[in-house]
């Protein structure tokens, strides 16, 4: 790879992205980041504002841990405080500048970032503008599993907060899946061939070494068994555990608690039949079916 060719992993939430990002990031020439949320804002000032909304504190924790790790080789409370102070001193920085700072810091390794799109095309365009030569991995998961997982997490949170309308949440889940995948497809379709690739998370988990090797080949990286073997151990990432009390997460909590790669195909689910989270027992809409089949789901 040339300089500054990070790998961005694009997908809706609940698509195995935490473990996949950390696993790929264990390749000796790559460096997997937790959720740093730099791809959805233009400046660090905006990034700081992200976590001001209730329930969004977690959006800071990943980057704080990264800065603490890269500056101090430590993710302690003090190191996180230092990291926050360091970022605050640079709150006028563009996220582009910080992304390149991180890329330089970890060079000659390359960043692997599972940047959320938040359902906005401009977030994808931003990543491309920050790193025009970046690689993009479009990661997919069956809409039923994604939806169930999403509903489980969100409805628990919603119940905690007295979320007013579970039906709206249910309706949103399917729409969200379609919209985000469509946006990613629309974005990647316009990239030069080979800059973006798509992968079913289920395939990856079934035979991870097979697909890790292909990912390494695609990125023009080492494919020897030591390199691929390293990718089988996301738990070796410095970010694959609960962090200090002032930045405990910064990644999917389930992953942080059990960061090992669980090899094996997730149990089969079908596109036919009502969506479990739909109170009226609705089936997937035609647009969902069409897109899901295009992505290889049945």
């Amino acid at each position, binding site marked *: 790879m040339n300089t500054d060719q990070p790998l961005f992993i694009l997908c809706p939430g609940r698509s195995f992205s935490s473990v996949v990002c950390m696993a790929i990031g264990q390749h000796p020439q790559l460096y997997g980041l937790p959720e740093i949320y730099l791809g959805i804002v233009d400046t660090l000032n905006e990034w700081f504002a992200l976590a001001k909304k209730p329930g969004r504190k977690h959006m800071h924790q990943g980057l704080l841990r990264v800065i603490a790790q890269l500056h101090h080789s430590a993710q302690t409370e*003090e190191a996180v405080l230092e990291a926050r102070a360091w970022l605050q001193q640079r709150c006028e920085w563009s996220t582009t500048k910080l992304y390149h700072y991180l890329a330089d810091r*970890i060079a000659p390794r390359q960043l692997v970032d599972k940047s959320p799109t938040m359902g906005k095309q401009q977030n994808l365009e931003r990543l491309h503008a920050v790193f025009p030569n970046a690689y993009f991995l479009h990661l997919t998961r069956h809409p039923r599993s994604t939806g169930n997982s999403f509903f489980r997490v969100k409805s628990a949170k919603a119940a905690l907060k007295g979320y007013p309308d579970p039906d709206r949440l249910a309706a949103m889940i399917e729409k969200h899946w379609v919209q985000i995948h469509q946006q990613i497809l629309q974005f990647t379709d316009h990239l030069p061939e080979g800059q973006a690739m798509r992968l079913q998370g289920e395939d990856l988990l079934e035979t991870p070494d097979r697909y890790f090797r292909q990912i390494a080949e695609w990125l023009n990286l080492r494919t020897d068994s030591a390199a691929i073997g390293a990718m089988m151990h996301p738990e070796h990432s410095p970010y694959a555990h609960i962090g200090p009390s002032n930045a405990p997460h910064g990644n999917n909590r389930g992953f942080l608690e059990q960061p090992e790669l669980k090899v094996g195909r997730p149990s089969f689910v079908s596109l036919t039949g009502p969506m479990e989270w739909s109170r009226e027992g609705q089936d997937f809409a035609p647009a969902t079916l069409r897109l899901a089949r295009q992505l290889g789901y049945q």
Partner: protein
Amino acid sequence: MTTLNLLSRWRPFDPSPPPGLHRDDFQKIAANGFGDLYNAYPHSMAWFKEHLYVGVTRANMCMLKASKIPTRLPFWPVDCPDNLYDLDMRAQIWRYNPIIGEWREVYRSPMITALDGSPIPRDMGYRGMAVFQGQSDPEPALYVSTYASARGPGAMVLRSIDGEAFSPVSKPGLLELPITSIRTLTPFKGRLLTSPTGRAGGSPNAADIAVIYENRDPLKGQWTPVNIEGFGDPGNAVVFEMAEFGDYFYAGTGNFRGGYQIWRTRAKGRPPYDWELVVTQGAQRGAFNQLAMSMVEFKGALYVGSGIQNGGIDLVNKIGPAAPELIRIHPDGRWDLLIGHARQTPQGLKTPLSGCRPGFGNGFNGYFWRMAVHEGWLYLATLDWSLMLYFSNQENWPPGFRRIVNRIGLDQIMERQAGGDLYRSFDGENWLPVTTNGFDNRYNYGIRGLVSTAYGLFAGAANPFGPRVAVRTEEGWAYQDNPHSGLEIWLGSKQGKQHA
């Protein structure tokens, strides 16, 4: 392909710095002044012949009480005899064998006859150490500079080949100068350089002889001045710290009212050499950067920590209190402000690159006392005078200061903050605390020595608050035994932690 190459091929490049030392990585390997609570300052430390050598100064609080340095303490913090010399003030040199974990006292100052005829220890402390091979030395030798009684003939330089027998290699007072202490010994291009630090009359840090002397052969040769007095500036009262960096020898002065200066020379030709002024006016902060307290080369730059004498408050010159700053000087003479106050300089606005205010934002930090590079990290140790608040007369405090202390609470300060700090940084700009409370002992008010070795980083904590310390009781001040007094030596090592 060698095994090493093979291994390095298999190991991915880790962009995180190598792990630095955490508080938990440090183990206390000596406490209570090696069993003698008057052993207060590990005033010099060096690694020599696979041992750590520690030069000890004794009963510093009692020395201070006996000195002419003004203080405003209502009740002396440490129980001292009326006559200092009722104490055994003979300085000691201890050494540590890290393999068997054993300490041994290898040297103790002889007694001599004072000018007034009374017996006094020749050396009351060992303030500097260096490993150096002079022209007549068959192998590298350990050189030690002394802290002498004002009643004696003066400080000198000792030498030891075997680490057990120490003999003077200078006249008293170096060249029979009226000096009582020598703080620095620095090898450079085949010479050993030094400079007088203190003189009698309450000026342990102001020899008023800001002259550097060199000697290629301390055993037989002469100590020769290499600069003109004070570099031509009468404000330079002392050359306080020296270091080699690149092709240059750097000297940092103490300038009590103008702020330190940093000079450098390549030491070419015959002395006195040509000197170049690199930093002046305390890096444009002025008197608050009174002394160049510590200097070390780290990753292509020379780091300079400052301080105000007597713990950060110079009552003689009415400077301070002010917390110290850190700068770094690049080989081309440019300098960066790392920790300190943003300010305009002739080179433009300088803001602290670390984002930290002086003293890491802790106004009680009086010196950036020592720095050392260990396994890729720069360690910086401070003297923190918070503890002195406890002993001080609150009525003398300025009202604003009193408000602040009362808001935080004196007990809180003693509990959480008192004790010297140790910080580390991988790049000089991002700093992380290792300890900010003297390794959990408030009486370790500063960390005076740092020595990097293959066995780990040795840190020597100065603790002059024994054997009996002043305590506030309902009836007023009283002295109590202080089980936490006496110097401590700590060893920081990841391996040590694993072994433990």
